[in-house]
């Protein structure tokens, strides 16, 4: 009797894993093809674009660059200067000091001749108290606004910046990011091109700056990082940006724009109530909420993506920092999916509800759990003696070569589209990492993902009750803000 049940369970689990593997393979093959088509179209479109016009045209949209900074005293001045030199006519730079404990404020005041002003703004999005808003007495820095506020985290700082911003588009970036001088014109293009749909957000590619040579605020010589984890992240970023996000853009299903480099329609951001500081995945959550709002209001919209290399950042090369980052990303994903569970498999939300949300739930959120169960299943098979070596080897070969294939394609895409990494030694070392990744790095990723799940269950960082109950509508975030204000007033 018990043997029969056990056999059935093993049989079902075995088939389930096979189906799961099959679905992953099919999904990623589709992603590979879609991203290739999107990349081809993008490169073709680029041939007909004159970006110089965008810089000076009166028709171009105005852009507010918002860069939150916390204890960035060492580089804040240099970074602000770099942002002020971007090639664009109508833009402002808002640096938000999120209660830094170092000398960021003093350095900014001294370097840009800043004075405290009585800048009046509309506090439509709740955020921590703004201590002061500074403007420069030097006309050369007229585009700069410096906001000093109480510490409240990145999302809270961005909300403060959004309240103070005055332009059509807001560009949310990490202050330590290196932006190419033409980044604003290229990112503005999708907002300008669309005729029948409203472009609510545009994401860009983040490049790995570790070990690269930077000159005049742009990367001039691309080199891969020295460490294994650094190299792995180069490949991972290729996979994520050049393949994943390009494919999602093709079907207008993009659910995530990197918090380090994202452009948003200010009007829509204000309508949905800005970032949600209670979640650690504020960048993904905002996009999902904005998309949800557009679907609920029945307004045709698009989330765009520009695959050109325009922004670079230093990635963590230490295991400790990387594990914390991945843990946070996993919790952010779970929290966002939990908050917007109403859209899951809901045809009313179109591609978002029927494709993007299920994909993220199954392949991004549940992947570490599924992989762990797979390992336990194999162990159980070995212990009970119902272990088929042929089966296991075949499955392993399938998964390993699949992982290698997808990573190789991502490098090929980069080579075909941009060919930035010209050094053959660099390419060889990336290929070695591709071969080693499934054995050395991937298990750690799974472990950090599981830790993220565990931390989420323990309620770490998030806003438990609200996240469990989720938003009934996209605009419900404003109610959360009101509750927060009431709580703080009491």
């Amino acid at each position, binding site marked *: *009797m018990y*043997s*029969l049940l056990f*056999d*059935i369970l093993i*049989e*079902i689990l*075995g*088939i*389930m894993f*096979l*189906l799961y*593997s*099959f679905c992953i*393979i099919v999904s990623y*093959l589709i992603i*590979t*093809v879609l991203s290739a088509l999107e990349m081809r179209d993008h490169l*073709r*479109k680029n*041939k*007909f674009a004159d970006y110089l*016009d965008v810089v000076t*045209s*009166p*028709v*171009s*949209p105005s852009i507010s660059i918002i860069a939150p900074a916390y204890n960035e005293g060492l580089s804040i001045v240099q970074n602000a200067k770099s942002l002020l030199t971007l090639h664009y006519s109508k833009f402002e730079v808002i640096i938000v000091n999120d209660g830094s404990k170092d000398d960021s404020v003093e350095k900014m005041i001294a370097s840009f001749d800043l*004075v405290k*002003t*009585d*800048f*009046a703004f*509309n506090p*439509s999005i709740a955020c921590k108290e703004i201590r002061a808003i500074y*403007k420069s*007495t030097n006309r050369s820095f*007229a585009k700069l606004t410096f906001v000093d506020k109480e510490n409240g985290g990145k999302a809270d700082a961005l909300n403060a910046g959004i309240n103070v911003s*005055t332009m059509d588009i807001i560009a949310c970036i990490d202050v330590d990011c290196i932006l190419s001088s033409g980044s604003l014109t290229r990112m503005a*293009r999708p*907002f*300008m*091109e*669309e*005729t*029948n749909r409203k472009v609510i957000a545009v994401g860009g590619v983040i490049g790995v700056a570790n070990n690269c040579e930077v000159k005049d605020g742009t990367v001039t010589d691309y080199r891969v990082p020295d460490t294994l984890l650094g190299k792995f992240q180069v490949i991972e970023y290729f996979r994520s940006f050049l393949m994943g996000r390009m494919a999602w853009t093709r079907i207008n299903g993009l659910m995530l724009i990197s918090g380090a480099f994202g452009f948003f329609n200010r009007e829509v951001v204000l309508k949905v109530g800005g970032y949600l500081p209670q979640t650690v995945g504020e960048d993904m959550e905002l996009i999902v909420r904005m998309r949800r709002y557009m679907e609920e209001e029945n307004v045709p919209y698009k989330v765009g993506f520009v695959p050109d290399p325009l922004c670079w950042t230093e990635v963590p090369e230490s295991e400790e920092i990387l594990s914390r980052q991945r843990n946070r990303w996993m919790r952010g994903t779970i929290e966002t999916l939990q908050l917007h569970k109403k859209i899951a498999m809901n045809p009313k939300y179109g591609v978002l509800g029927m494709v993007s949300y299920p994909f993220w739930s199954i392949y991004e959120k549940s992947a570490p759990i599924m992989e762990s169960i797979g390992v336990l299943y194999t162990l159980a098979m070995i212990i009970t003696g119902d272990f*088929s070596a*042929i*089966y296991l080897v*075949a*499955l392993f*070969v*399938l998964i390993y*070569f*699949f992982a290698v*294939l997808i990573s190789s*394609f991502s490098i*090929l895409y980069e*080579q*075909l589209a941009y060919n930035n990494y010209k050094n053959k030694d660099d390419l060889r070392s990336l290929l070695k990492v591709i071969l080693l990744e499934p054995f050395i790095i991937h298990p750690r990723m799974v472990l950090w993902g599981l830790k993220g799940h565990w931390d989420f269950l323990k309620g770490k960082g998030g806003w438990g009750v609200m996240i469990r109950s989720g938003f009934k509508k996209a605009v419900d975030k404003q109610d959360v803000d009101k509750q927060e204000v009431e709580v703080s007033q009491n």
Partner: protein
Amino acid sequence: MTVFLLLLFFSAFAQEGQDEIDFIPVPIEEVLLKGREVPGVSFVYSVSLPQGVDAYSYALRPSSQTNTWVTDTLQYYTDVKALQDSVYSHYEVSGDIQAFLFDEMISEEGLQSYFDNLVRNELYIIEEDRVEDDTKVGELIILGNKMHFKPFYRLKIQILSDIRMIILISFLAFFVFAAIVLVIVIFIIKTKKRNKDVLVKRFKDLCYEPLSNLLFEKSLEEIQEMTKGDIAAVLPKNLMDNSLFNDVLIQEIISLNKNMKGDFKQKLKLIYRKLDLDKHTIQKLSSKRWDIITTGIVEINEMDVLEAEELVNKFINHDNFYIRSNAVATLLNISGDSNLKVLANQKYPLSKWQQMIYYRIIRYTKDNRNVSLLLESENQSVRVFGIKLIRYLGLVDQLEVLNMRYAESTDPEKIEMLRCFNMFGYVDSLEVVYADLKSDNIPLVTEAITLIQNIGEKISLTILFELSQLTNEFDIKKAAMKAIFHLDPIVFEEYYGHTENDLELRISRHLKDPVLNNV
């Protein structure tokens, strides 16, 4: 749900298949008669004996029913059978044997079914009868040694009988197939791209010198007198029919054309014509690929191929954004369409990108353009663009037209008109503008306030103050207060000097802050 059903189907199918192939039921009685015990199974023997009989000696005891004797629960069927035989031989009454499964009465079929399950799941192993004759064992071993080894489970059978293995092999095959296709496609693309890059570089080198020589060593007249053959003679002859070479040649000519002035431009266009490259360009318009058609249109634009006007005209309302945009831009450039008909007849809304391109073209020929037709267009985005052009190009003579149209215009048009009026500091009557202060459209109201700020009158102060008191919208309140502050700082002080409203206080301080003059 589908996956679950599939799983159920597969698991049930697998189980059923195994039952049919592997299992041959054995009657339980055969096993029991061999004196073997089956776990959970027991028996009770009952018999009705004549009154007065004492059957205690048979290990029977009287039951609750009259004259009926029963045994205790017995584990071995052979014991019960032996007892039955003894009773029969003495009393000629056979009695009944009742089977029990875990102390519950069970029928013969139920017992057999239970036994089958035990055997099927290998919970009960049926022992083979021992070979009595030891000599036969030896013979069997000798016989066995003479036979070749033949495994009962062959690998092929094992793989094909395992549903998981079949699915896995199918996936593997699919994956390998898909991977090979992808690798081949990518390899072909990469090779083609590399070859093309090498060829383009080579062709560029081959074009550059002859073109430079023609440009700098020959006069315009000399080139005019040259035939196609004369010009082709300085270029690689065997490549003149090569499509890629012609493409590279055109791109080089266009590139030089952009960087040159005067006679040189004419020389380049002449060379382009003499080499029949215009025909090569026009051919591109028949392509199925949008990027090739667009390239053709761009080349027509750059090289002023006027005779292609009709052909390009077909594309002005094409559903592809890039074809449409470049076709309109080309016609604006080459057609001499002073009334901008091509724009006015646009079916699709104009994007900002298109407006940017068209503005760049119109800006250089503004004296020959009449934008008023754009204001008559049925397409709202075209009308809005027309009003923008009046502002960007400083077409003061069109302000009167705008004045007349203002009251009947849509909100986006009104917003642009207000910006126009604001820029030129002109409006026929502020009454219509005051009327718009009641609108729900915040950008419209703020634009109206900005205009009043620049050309307002005394009564405007009262209207703006009332508006600032009635509204809760930050942008409107700020714009209204700013306008009052600019129109009359003394009145502003009267209105807001003693206000206790937090928002008004903040805006007031902002307006008075000298550093924020332009914010």
